[in-house]
């Protein structure tokens, strides 16, 4: 296993390029189960199981819906500056797999 925070490669289903400047959330068909290493993530729609391999990543994923952009969630989870690129790559992978999805920009939020 590598040190990458996301495990288990998944088949990619393109949903538009990942853009950390936009708001995201966990997909509605996805459930997260915390475990000592991070979390199990299950997509009831695709029946795909994957693993979030660090606790901060679990925090980021769950915080997405409360922030106007992905960067806000990274700050919320206390991800240190030097680690952020690695987390953004992991999140891009989760977006490709459909685990997280872009959220419509709601009133009061700025694009």
């Amino acid at each position, binding site marked *: *296993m590598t040190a990458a925070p996301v*495990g288990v490669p998944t088949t990619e289903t393109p949903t538009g390029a990942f853009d950390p400047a936009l708001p995201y959330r966990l997909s509605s068909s996805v*459930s997260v*189960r*915390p*475990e*000592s*290493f991070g979390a*199990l993530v*299950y997509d*009831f*729609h695709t*029946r795909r*199981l994957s*693993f979030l*391999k660090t606790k901060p990543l679990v925090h980021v994923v769950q915080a997405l819906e409360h922030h106007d952009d992905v960067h806000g969630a990274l700050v919320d989870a206390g991800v240190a500056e030097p680690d952020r690129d690695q987390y953004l790559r992991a999140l891009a992978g989760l977006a490709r797999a459909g685990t997280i999805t872009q959220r419509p920009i709601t009133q009061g939020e700025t694009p």
Partner: protein
Amino acid sequence: MKLVEHFTHGLTSPICLTWELTYACNLSCVHCLSSSGRRDPNELSTAEAKAVIDELQRMQVFYVNIGGGEPTVRSDFWELLDYAIAHDVGVKFSTNGVKLDEARAAQLAATDYVDVQISLDGATAEVNDHVRGPGSYDTAIRAMENLYEAGFGQFKISVVVTRQNVGQLDDFKAIADRYGAQLRITRLRPSGRGADSWDELHPTQAQQRQLYDWLVARGEDVLTGDSFFHLSAYGQELPGLNLCGAGRVVCLIDPVGDVYACPFAIHDQFLAGNVRSEGGFREVWQHSELFGELRGPQSGGACTKCSHYDACQGGCMAAKFFTGLPLDGPDPECVLGNGETALAKLEMDTVIPKPSLDHSHRKTRGERKDGGPVPLTLSVRRPDKACDSDPLAGEGRRLPAGVRVN
């Protein structure tokens, strides 16, 4: 700590589990891992089964593999299926196809979060029916046609790899492609009636190599249930965790609610508790003594000195147990041949554990249409004692295959 090490120490809930809903079955497959046939009168009721589903939902067990027996012969099967799906417990169920007529296929096609797995152990009727019984090939193919016609999408075709069908892997793939299905192949274990048919059915050393090469070359879209990790010792690690998940990330709930470490280990030694006991399934999973032991340090015995130990981890616990090998010894199908050597060295009076339960139909199925080979050939093992003439001598020990002591 690597992810796989976390798994070794166990998770708060299983990743998934096998739930055998009934021991009743219309077939009498000679390798049945759960010795199914007759319904157990103590089977969980509909209400009890729903309570288990509630518990699985609370524990966030995202999906269960439902089997049996033949689960669809339970009259409340469809009710339990809908109940599980409505409670965020996805279902994959294994069936021989007996109940999957056009109407059920259409119903399944309209249901989300359900996956169907049709058992097929030969790419031809001849090879399949030899193991699964007369007519079972046609039943399975009809079910596949119905699912395909109903637009179910990608169901699974589940094959137990045997000496007789290992040469048909490409043919199985072709059948799967024909019906838009995905092929799943798993390892034969000497569990249940599989103990009686093991000597005849399990792949030879040369066939194991053939299987490994096929998996490396063509196995990309083929599921294996992670069951061939002992073959990783040939070289390249096969995809998957390469880990025995018994009691750590998986387990079995049997029809009467007993919780075993794995579906292939229906024996008192691997019984962790019962869902009917206080605290239910959660208590058994999180606090049973047995599962605690399985999550602790394991002794690999002599195998730890082998350069391939990291790859195969000593192989399958159930396969060792039901062939009479010590749990810290080599797998009976060790690719280096250490299992065969160990089996040859077993003392004549070695007690081979028998499954704790047997729900086999009391009468074996009727004559085969072709009058073909009898599946249970005589064992090549020596009798317990040279002077034993009574076939029932040595009860509890390995008998010539086909002689069953009830």
